[in-house]
């Protein structure tokens, strides 16, 4: 804050996902006035419930959810170290400095996760995990996924800390087949070389209303109600045993999931977990999005629900956003954080003529370091199923303060910052660090923007590390 009586400065954060939320909350904590502009949720609302930060081990040609190196499952800390050595273009290189400072990366990840847990806690959404241990979480089809951090409801399904797993059968629910899940799970455990886990299927006697519900969304909404919660708790009473995990489909409530899971655990005596699922079961991503939205509201952050048409530098220390709201409304800001995502969020567009960044036409680089903006997407595609697609790593390049670079190689604007998937150089679908990058770069960009408001425009000093 400047001493001449001016207001602390207004920052516009574009994007509603984890990167935008982390930047906005960090800026609000630093005393900035924040306006968040977003047309709707982004890719964060579509995640399965894990928050992967450590990454897969690079150069290992296995499916990304089977991190096996010489028969061993690597710890998250080891995967992070390997990943950082093997992926020099990954945004972690900008965030944590070069190569060897592995302790700093670990400290910053752990601190960032603590902050995220603090933002989510008031909504009852827990965050579990560490860099010191893996979690092995079953999905709805029965495959296993290695995770370091995960949201509470899915973390309960961890098979590494269970001595017995019972899959809850809900025959009417579409997409949920307890028998097939158990069978695939047994194969997966075998393929990973893990000890056999006693698997069973339990058939709770559900009340009529819940038994017939086929739609996962409607069942989850029904289970938000106290009487449905009590009925389900009664149905699972006595199904528990020491070390047993009851594996449910991810439908245990939309908003009231915490009291429901607590009631189920109390009634059954077992630990309760949800299976991982991607859309259209995407209930954990939805919970994460709602908890982040609530945290932003609690922090008093203004939300403008509109899509942005363009961003332009008004002068050396101000930028102006033009909204696509029909009236072409303008928002002026002293700094802007772009957290617009990639192809899902709309931060990158791949129309028939060309790939482009629609707000500022920033230069984009793919995973091989080639410039791809202005070139049709099909020209960058590699033929063949399963080939790595460099276009999936496309995004902007930034300096150490996360300011996107213009075509001349210098920051596009002194007070323009970028966070999340818009940062190029990594492929979130293969390397699985999407939410990790979103959280860490969001916090980092928020700090850098707050610092830019305090200091003179265009300051080129390196930002202080995150404590």
């Amino acid at each position, binding site marked *: 804050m400047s001493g001449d009586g001016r207001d602390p400065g207004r920052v516009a954060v574009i994007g509603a996902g984890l990167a935008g939320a982390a930047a906005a909350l960090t800026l609000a904590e630093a005393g900035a006035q924040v306006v968040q502009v977003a047309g709707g949720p982004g890719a964060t609302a579509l995640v399965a419930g894990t928050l992967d930060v450590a990454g897969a081990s690079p150069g290992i040609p296995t499916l990304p959810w089977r991190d096996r190196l010489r028969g061993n499952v690597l710890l998250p800390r080891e995967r992070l170290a390997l990943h950082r050595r093997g992926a020099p273009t990954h945004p972690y290189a900008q965030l944590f400095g070069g190569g060897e400072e592995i302790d700093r990366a670990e400290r910053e990840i752990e601190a960032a996760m603590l902050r995220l847990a603090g933002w989510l806690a008031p909504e009852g959404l827990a965050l579990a995990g560490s860099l010191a241990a893996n979690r092995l979480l079953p999905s709805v089809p029965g495959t296993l996924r290695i995770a370091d951090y995960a949201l509470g409801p899915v973390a309960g399904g961890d098979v590494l800390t269970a001595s017995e797993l019972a899959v809850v059968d809900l025959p009417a629910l579409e997409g949920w087949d307890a028998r097939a899940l158990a069978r695939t799970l047994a194969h997966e455990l075998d393929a990973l070389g893990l000890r056999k886990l006693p698997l069973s299927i339990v058939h709770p006697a559900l009340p009529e209303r819940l038994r017939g519900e086929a739609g996962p969304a409607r069942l989850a909404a029904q289970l938000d109600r106290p009487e449905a919660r009590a009925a389900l708790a009664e149905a699972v009473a006595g199904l528990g045993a020491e070390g047993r995990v009851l594996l449910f489909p991810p439908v245990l409530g939309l908003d009231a999931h915490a009291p429901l899971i607590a009631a189920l655990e109390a009634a059954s005596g077992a630990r309760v977990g949800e299976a991982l699922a991607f859309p259209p079961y995407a*209930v954990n991503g939805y919970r994460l999005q709602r908890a982040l939205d609530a945290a932003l509201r609690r922090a008093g952050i203004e939300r403008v629900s509109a899509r942005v048409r363009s961003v332009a530098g008004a002068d050396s220390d101000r930028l102006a956003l033009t909204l696509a709201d029909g009236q072409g409304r303008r928002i002026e800001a002293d700094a802007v954080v772009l957290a617009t995502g990639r192809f899902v969020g709309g931060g990158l567009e791949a129309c028939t003529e060309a790939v482009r960044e629609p707000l500022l036409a920033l230069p984009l680089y793919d995973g091989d370091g080639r410039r791809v903006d202005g070139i049709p997407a099909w020209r960058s595609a590699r033929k063949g199923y399963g080939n790595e697609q460099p276009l999936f790593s496309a995004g902007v390049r930034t300096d150490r303060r996360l300011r996107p670079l213009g075509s001349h190689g210098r920051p596009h604007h002194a007070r323009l910052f970028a966070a999340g998937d818009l940062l190029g150089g990594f492929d979130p679908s293969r390397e699985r660090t999407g939410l990790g990058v979103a959280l860490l770069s969001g916090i980092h960009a928020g700090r850098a923007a707050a610092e830019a408001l305090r200091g003179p425009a265009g300051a080129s000093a390196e930002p202080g590390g995150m404590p």
Partner: protein
Amino acid sequence: MRGYRGFMREFARTGSLRALSLQLRTGAAHVVRQWFRRKRSDPVAQFMAYYGPDGVARPEAETRSLALSAQDCLVCGLCNLECARVGGAPAIDPRDAVVAASRLEVDWRRLGLAPEPAGACTGCDACSRVCPAGIPIHRLQAQLLAPGAAPASDATPGRIG
């Protein structure tokens, strides 16, 4: 399925040969029809002269823009979750409505597929507000019930945010 032979075996086994013959017959019907219709200079008028009798109508600008916006659907299902959370119970789930609209531009009433008013969407825009692709889902739902009577157009959705 291996090679052309395998394809043909699979094709015959699943009864798709029947579908193919139907398709050929329909195709032939169109060719025959085009011989006997008067030629016009305006291609659109000519098309309507051929197919108007089948109930094909020129889509209104509104219908067309809705169907095009539905093609941005990611099939993520957030609309279903939000609809269930606010207590909606439409006869056709919002996601299914979007998927259908993105593939077919049809008159639902004529096909007997339009939901009864009792099972209709209430028209709150909860689903549209959570849509990552910015699709006006509640307007699509309204159109299922009454084609051509969708609520007035909002701002054209962009793709950012």
